[in-house]
């Protein structure tokens, strides 16, 4: 689900309403003017060719003047109505509660870092490229950019906001229909601007609360020998230079937090479905899927790769 035409929040619904009104009025105006132009171009109302080229008879002139003035007046009127409607939608969009669940989003080339704010730092939940929100509750987003300008846009929820280095932007919406909604970076941000998607998962508050509570807990440490081997590979081969996994010594923030990696539906900011085969393919050569991506292809032996993938698959 990735469309302005299926609003899933009061905010997106208000704008969609405005759109359908504008579309209707605009279409009528376009049709009217176009039809008039075709009609006058073919009708040949004017006098004969031999008539005076420079002057139109006064009565015709007066009639034309009246019609043109009326048309300009009508234009002004339509614009005035539109302006009032637009400002009323604008006011509605600007309304938000004093306090709300706040989600920090940081745009990176080319993925989304997500942090759920909590007064208790240990309860902050970090994830990437997939944002869970409770249905029926207004959520605030604080948007920042780590490198270049990005733009956060989930059309089913609300309009976009640019993430600009040196600035913090905010965005509010209240999902009112449960579902999974796709969003994508809307400001050109370099080579992989095309593959910088994210998902909004709107779920009932109870389910959301459970997800959030689980999020602050680290995954269970591996016990199986293959998995332990996979974890060692992760820690020693370079993965941990960029990625973090809760409850382990991997705490880097260069790449996406992988604590609950398997709980997400996609790999590489919406580029691939999160399956074992795709994950293997991705780790083997990220640039084959996302040319220019910052993640390097590390020279894993087949056994290492297999263990690593098995380990990552357990991070639920």
């Amino acid at each position, binding site marked *: 689900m990735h469309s302005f035409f299926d609003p899933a929040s009061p905010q997106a619904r208000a704008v969609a309403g405005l*759109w359908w009104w504008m579309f209707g009025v605009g279409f009528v105006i376009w049709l009217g003017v176009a039809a*008039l132009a075709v009609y006058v171009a*073919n009708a040949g*109302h004017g006098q004969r060719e031999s008539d005076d080229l420079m002057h139109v008879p006064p009565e*015709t002139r007066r009639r034309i003047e009246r019609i043109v003035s009326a048309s300009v007046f009508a234009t*002004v009127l339509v614009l005035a109505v539109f302006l009032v409607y637009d400002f009323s939608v604008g006011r509605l969009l600007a309304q938000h509660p004093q306090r709300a669940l706040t989600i920090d989003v940081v745009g990176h080339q080319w993925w989304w870092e997500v942090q759920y704010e909590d007064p208790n730092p240990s309860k902050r939940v970090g994830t990437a490229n997939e944002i869970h929100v409770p249905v029926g509750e207004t959520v605030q987003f604080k948007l920042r950019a780590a490198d270049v300008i990005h733009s956060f846009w989930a059309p089913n929820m609300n309009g*976009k906001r640019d993430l600009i280095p040196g600035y913090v932007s905010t965005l509010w919406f209240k999902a009112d229909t449960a579902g999974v909604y796709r969003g994508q970076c*809307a400001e050109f941000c*370099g080579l992989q601007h*095309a593959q910088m998607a994210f998902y909004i998962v709107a779920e009932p508050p109870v389910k959301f609360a459970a997800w959030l509570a689980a999020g602050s807990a680290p995954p269970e440490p591996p016990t199986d020998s293959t998995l332990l081997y996979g974890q060692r590979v992760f820690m020693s081969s370079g993965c941990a230079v960029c990625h973090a996994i809760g409850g382990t010594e991997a705490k880097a923030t260069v790449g996406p937090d992988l604590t609950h990696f398997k709980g997400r539906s996609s790999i590489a900011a919406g580029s691939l479905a999160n399956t074992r085969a795709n994950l293997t393919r991705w780790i083997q050569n990220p640039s084959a899927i996302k040319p220019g991506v910052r993640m390097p292809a590390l020279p894993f032996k087949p056994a290492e790769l297999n263990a690593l993938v098995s380990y990552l698959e357990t991070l639920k």
Partner: protein
Amino acid sequence: MTTLPVNEKLPADVTLSPDELLREAMALDTTWRDKPGVWGWLSAVDHKTTAKRYIITAFLMFIAGGIEAALMRLQLARPENNLIGPDRYNQLFTTHGTTMMFLFAVPIMTAMGLYFVPLMIGARSIAFPRLNAFGFWNYFVGVVFLYVSLFANTGPDTGWFAYVPLSGPAYSPGHRVDVWAQVVTFTEIAALCGAVNIIATVFKMRAPGMSLNRIPLFVWAQLVVAFMIVFAMPAVATGSTLMLATDRAVNMHWFNPAEGGDALLWQHIFWFFGHPEVYIIFLPAVGMVTPIIETFCRRQVFGYTAIVMANITTAFFAFGLWVHHMFATPIPELGQSLFTAASMVIAIPTGLQIFCWIATMWAGRPRLTVPMLFVLGFLFTFINGGITGVMLASVAFDKQAHDTFFVVAHLHYVLIGGGLMPLFGAFYYWFPKITGRLLKESWGKLHFWLFLIGTNVTFFPMHVLGLNGMPRRIYTYLAPTGWGPLNLLATAGALTIALSVLIFVVNAAKSWFGGELAKENPWEAAGLEWATASPPPPYNFIHTPLVRSRHPLWEPTVELPVVVGLRSDRREILVTTTFDARPDSRHNSPDGSIWPLYTALSMGLVFIGSIFSPYFVLGGLGVSLVGLLGWAWQSTQPSGVERVALPDGPIVERV
């Protein structure tokens, strides 16, 4: 109509015999014709020669930009296509935008003015023909530089808007963005030279009697746009040359937030230029629509004064809209509302002009020739783009549509509808004047219909794609997005456009070298450009026409009143007063010179060299200095006896 501001002093029985006219014409031809040979070709300063070079180069740029667009459409024709990778794709869309805006649209609109403004106001030449040639060569250096860079895989790749910090030194190392910044500099210089030229020409060189209220509407549009260029282009020159290039070359921090710089400053500066840019393309096109409608409806346009006022109002408001490109950025909401209101208000003067044209057609008897068809095509297409433009003025809606294919659709409806359609109409209309040959109507009609259909098939589906979530400037998309079918349709439309343009090119080439010969005024039009041969001689008019109304050639008199007394043994032009166009003085216009080309090339060395080392700048400036000295030396050659009007005294004769 107001009374004549010009005295008709000579008695009615003074006449010019055919012999006298022939002798005069031959003398003028010797004086005004650019020298033959390669050197003469490189030194040419005839405004028509310069303008033709501009038009042809700019049209080649249109084809280049079109090929880039077609390649992008092929890549997007289906999901996860592998035709073009992201690196190449980013260079393509950046070069497409840069080419179409900086190297095609603005130059070709200016070039039409540089060709026709002197002819339409009855002047022998343009105010500063050498400056004009200098502007062209600058532009030409920019064109060559961009395309050599593109083929050397150094094409700019951060969009025609080059947003920082992506285009800054940290995220775009290498020289790709430098190429962009310098290409912009070249075209700025060219546009500014053209604008100053047009302002001086329109203010001081109008035919006697052409008071402000008799200036043809195309010339009015060019004048208003020249003023817009004077205030808009310095903004992008400031941003690209004085800020972005210095950030990149000498570590300045204009846009570096870590040192107090500001990424949004670039957006303010860029759009302060970028929004007026749209009207810099649109207003000259509007100026082309009016004479086409007048000629083929055989009626003077309804609401001359209203249209002039609409042009001026549009120009003013155009500078007050830039923030509507930045609604998604964190700027105060009150400010945004003001820009919403301004963006809607600008629809009023545009609407007024459309109503005036429809009224003119209503009062007349339209003949649906190819130029008229393009005017109708302009109305259908442009109004669509105008309506989506008003929609985008809404902050709430813009935050959804901004940076999506909806905006791609909108801007192409505006620029193709409001710029290209009138321009094609103008090509058919003025082609006989420029070349002395008529374009083939039947081919023209085919061109028109394919172009109209192609444009709508390409761009209409993009509205839907954008609202379905497809952002701009993406080189690929996944199949589950469902964007495939409409993209395929758009690609089919793009190929239709390409076919229609091909038909036009073949038609133009065939007609130029063997088409039906055109008379001096094949359409029985009213403007002064039709009062001379097709193509016009180097001196434009044997004698300067005298103007008594807005439609000199539709005057019911048998004879065309002219002013005599300009010398034919040197390049002399008539200077008139700014408001009433009373004859005021005779000005000695410069002849051909190699220095404009030399100076443009040496400036090219400065700007292109600045990318690589500051020493190039110093060396280039030294080389340029020689050019300026040579230019000045040539401009101060003895010119014989002059009649000098002392500021507070009599006229004296001096050598």
